[in-house]
């Protein structure tokens, strides 16, 4: 069982703990003569109402808050599609070296040769792993990588005078970011249906591609955790119609050393370094979403990329660049972590990552397919999607099962996604979990299945021992309460 934090938790916000005159850190004295102030009309009349708390209070407050989180460091976290693998501690140490964490983005290239070499090496390694040699590391997360990749596709067609190509074909199982990014890129979204085996319906795709097709965006392996068996046919169908094929690389972990997506006919991809390459998710970022393209599309990449001439590394803009998509050169701190990981794993370890991720997912699938329905019960890649419809018929939903898992100290799988699977529970164990952990998860799932028969309210009321039971999310949206207000004082601690 998850061990609750003993005693009452003081949930008061910082402003409710504030005592006038307390400080958390001492600032240096002014060591230059005081200078004349500007016109008072430009100055702040009332100071910002920030809390006044001492340093020990700051540390205890945030440490207590941290203990209310589940995390990879403390819990099994099989959140499908998110690749919650162990985040090596050495990655953190390398990212915070003064020569990495302390350098300014406007420093001249000759003063940051080590950083530029690291970026260049990572560009090369990601190009090699995916078989897509044109790499730009600037995009700050997966969705920005998607948008950037789609802009590259549009620039490519504009360059060819094919301006009528304004349709993005997207499977019904896709992540929500795919259609949202396509809309930002000015593309009309047409949904491609899946067949009963969870694959792309190739005949339907054939009927949908035409001279308006810009890209077909495909997550590989799919959000059902399945490798598309007709992939070569699919990429050639799109190519024959003159379109490009985009790979959503959210699930790249399953393919490391197994196959290069460039070899399959993909033209553009993004990779989520915070998934496949072990950089921490941080409670919702920062991430990094490098965009990867074929040789032909390379000249349209966003700026900057790093080029090497002999031993000299330079930040440059590709010749027909789509431009700049963020402030500087990308999430450099995340890039350092991903590079550290690739060097630690090495050539011999890449395939081992994918293989262990695939074995772990199939182990769970084969163990649970009897009690819990599997959406498409065939061999999967790095994740499997349960569809507990029999349990739903008994009055227990995927949500209830998820919340009950919390009582056992396990983070719930991704729920109700992909949208095409009723009561979906998407389980991605990753390669960094042991057989022991998986056996315990399987045992807990079976125990929960028995509880559904014996005491379903145990599930309806779950979780029980967390700092909060289920929250009124509808109420939160109806009456948005979005920042601290003074009148909150009396009700904050309960």
């Amino acid at each position, binding site marked *: 069982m998850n061990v609750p934090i003993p005693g009452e938790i003081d949930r008061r916000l910082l402003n409710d703990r504030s005592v006038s005159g307390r400080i958390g850190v001492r600032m240096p004295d002014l060591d230059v003569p005081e200078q004349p102030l500007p016109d008072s009309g430009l100055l702040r009349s009332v100071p*910002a109402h920030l809390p006044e708390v001492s340093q020990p209070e700051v540390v205890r407050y945030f*440490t207590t808050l941290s203990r209310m989180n589940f995390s990879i460091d403390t819990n099994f976290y099989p959140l499908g599609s998110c690749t919650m693998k162990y985040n090596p501690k050495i990655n953190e140490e390398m990212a915070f070296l003064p020569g990495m964490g302390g350098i*300014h983005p406007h420093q001249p290239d000759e003063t940051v040769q*080590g950083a530029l070499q690291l970026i260049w090496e990572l560009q090369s390694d990601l190009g090699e792993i995916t078989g897509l040699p044109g790499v730009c590391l600037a995009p700050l997360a*997966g969705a920005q990588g998607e948008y950037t990749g789609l802009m590259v596709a549009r620039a490519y067609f504009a360059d060819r005078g094919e301006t009528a190509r304004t349709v993005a074909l997207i499977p019904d199982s896709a992540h929500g970011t795919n259609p949202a990014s396509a809309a930002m890129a000015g593309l009309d979204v047409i949904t491609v249906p899946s067949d009963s085996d969870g694959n792309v319906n190739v005949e339907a795709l054939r009927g949908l591609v035409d001279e308006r097709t810009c890209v077909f965006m495909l997550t590989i392996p799919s959000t059902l955790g399945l490798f598309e068996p007709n992939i070569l046919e699919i990429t050639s169908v799109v190519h024959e119609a003159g379109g490009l094929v985009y790979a959503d690389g959210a699930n790249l972990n399953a393919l490391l050393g197994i196959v290069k997506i460039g070899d399959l006919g993909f033209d553009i991809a993004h990779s989520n370094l915070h998934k496949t390459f072990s950089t921490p998710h941080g409670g919702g970022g920062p991430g990094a979403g490098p965009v990867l393209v074929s040789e032909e599309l390379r000249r349209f990449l966003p700026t900057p990329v790093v080029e090497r001439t002999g031993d000299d590394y330079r930040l440059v803009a590709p010749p027909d660049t789509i431009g700049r998509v*963020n402030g500087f050169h990308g999430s450099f701190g995340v890039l350092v972590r991903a590079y550290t990981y690739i060097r630690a794993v090495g050539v011999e370890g890449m395939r081992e990552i994918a293989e262990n991720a695939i074995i772990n997912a199939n182990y769970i699938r084969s163990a649970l397919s009897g009690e819990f329905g599997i959406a498409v019960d065939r061999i999967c890649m790095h994740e499997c999607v349960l569809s507990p419809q029999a349990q739903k018929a008994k009055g227990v939903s995927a949500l209830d099962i998820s919340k009950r898992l919390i009582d056992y100290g396990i983070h719930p799988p991704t729920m109700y996604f992909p949208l095409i699977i009723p009561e979906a529970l998407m389980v991605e164990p990753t390669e960094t979990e042991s057989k022991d952990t998986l056996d315990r998860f399987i045992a807990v799932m079976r125990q929960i299945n028995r509880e559904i028969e014996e005491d379903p309210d145990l599930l309806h009321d779950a979780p029980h021992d967390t700092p909060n039971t289920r929250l009124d999310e509808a109420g939160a949206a109806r009456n948005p309460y979005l920042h601290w207000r003074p009148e909150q004082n009396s009700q904050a601690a309960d």
Partner: protein
Amino acid sequence: MTTKASPYIPNTDAERELMLAAIGVRSIEDLVRDVPAQHRFPHLDLRPALSEFDLTAEISALAARNATPGEYACFLGGGAYRHYIPSVVKSVVARGEFLTSYTPYQPEVAQGTLQVGFEFQSMICEITGMEVANAGMYDGPTAFAEGALMACRITRRQTIAVLDTVDPRNIAILDAYSRHQDIKIVVIGRDDDLPEDAACLMVQSPNEYGVVEDLAALAARSHTSGALAVASVNPTSLGMFRSPGECDVDIVAAEGQALGVPLSFGGPYVGLFACKDVYKRQMPGRIVGRTTDTKGRVGYALTLQTREQHIRRERATSNICTSTALIGLLMTTYLAALGREGFRQVAELCYHKAHYAAAEIDRLPGYSVRNDGPFFHEFVVECPRPPAEINTALLDHKIIGGLDLSDRTPNGMLICVTEVNTRAEIDRLVSALAEIGPR
């Protein structure tokens, strides 16, 4: 003697055999039969694995080839700022419970991340004087661009007016974000009229030359044309200068890096995003709201999610998903440690030191400080020779000079001074500039 095992993968060969048998297959090959055989198990041209000891040596050697501010006195700003980061900030962010958790979709096991998000939003409202804030964007410039797109949605107009003192980098990103949405970008001067169909006027303060803009006057001008005022501000400056909320600005974006986030060669940073309450349902990104649980206790959850891509898909207010929660935690801890007094002090230290430096440099023969209006902690120096030459010479003095603006203003250099630049460093810069002097 070599070890084959990976420290990140627990299962042994023996355990894998047991698992394959349980699955009912003989080998891993049986699990990847859907992958086309001719492309399966490709050769990878990567280097071999390193031990942690060798890895540390290799990456430390790369780091050592970078000139590090601290070892060098550094006077660069232009969108990223060096400030002192209290030790508590680094200690809190290292907590694995924050570092290795995911987006808080399961609020019962993410109250830590969620309550931090609520504190973050509260602090942004306090320092900007705005009514609502979201839980963070990728960085300042993308937040600024998203602010303009939001103004287009609100006003149903498709022209974005940008004041010509906005950093060209910000305009480039706005161009990339709006290119495929039938939006026209018009750059206007201070005395130009707003286009009639302008959705907003975008203003940056301090601007690309470090000058503090009259936000109240600019906001009033936008409102006269039925446009919104969208401002990008430097959050450190708000310890002293009037907040955009007091100036009636409608949408505010800011680069949060200056508030406790390492420079890290440009990222990861955090974009701050705030607006007037009436516009909150058009905001991009995640928002944390306060609510209650089934036992009536206060708790927090992501809210107003029907704006977002995972629900709305192609009709979402933005495609943003993974953002920068952890960097938001850095900022929140930083402002908690500084508190009301420290926030004001940092701003004042920056102000006085920068003005001291400007006065000293302005006295040097051949150098003059441009006087375009009041500034905070950055100012433009017109140099007697190209700034690139001066900066190369400064490196020999163990000084990283200012940002080269000679593409915009003749021999212009943007110099930034913050509380981490001691008087000794400033005096060293001044005498080095005097020594380098005209050719």
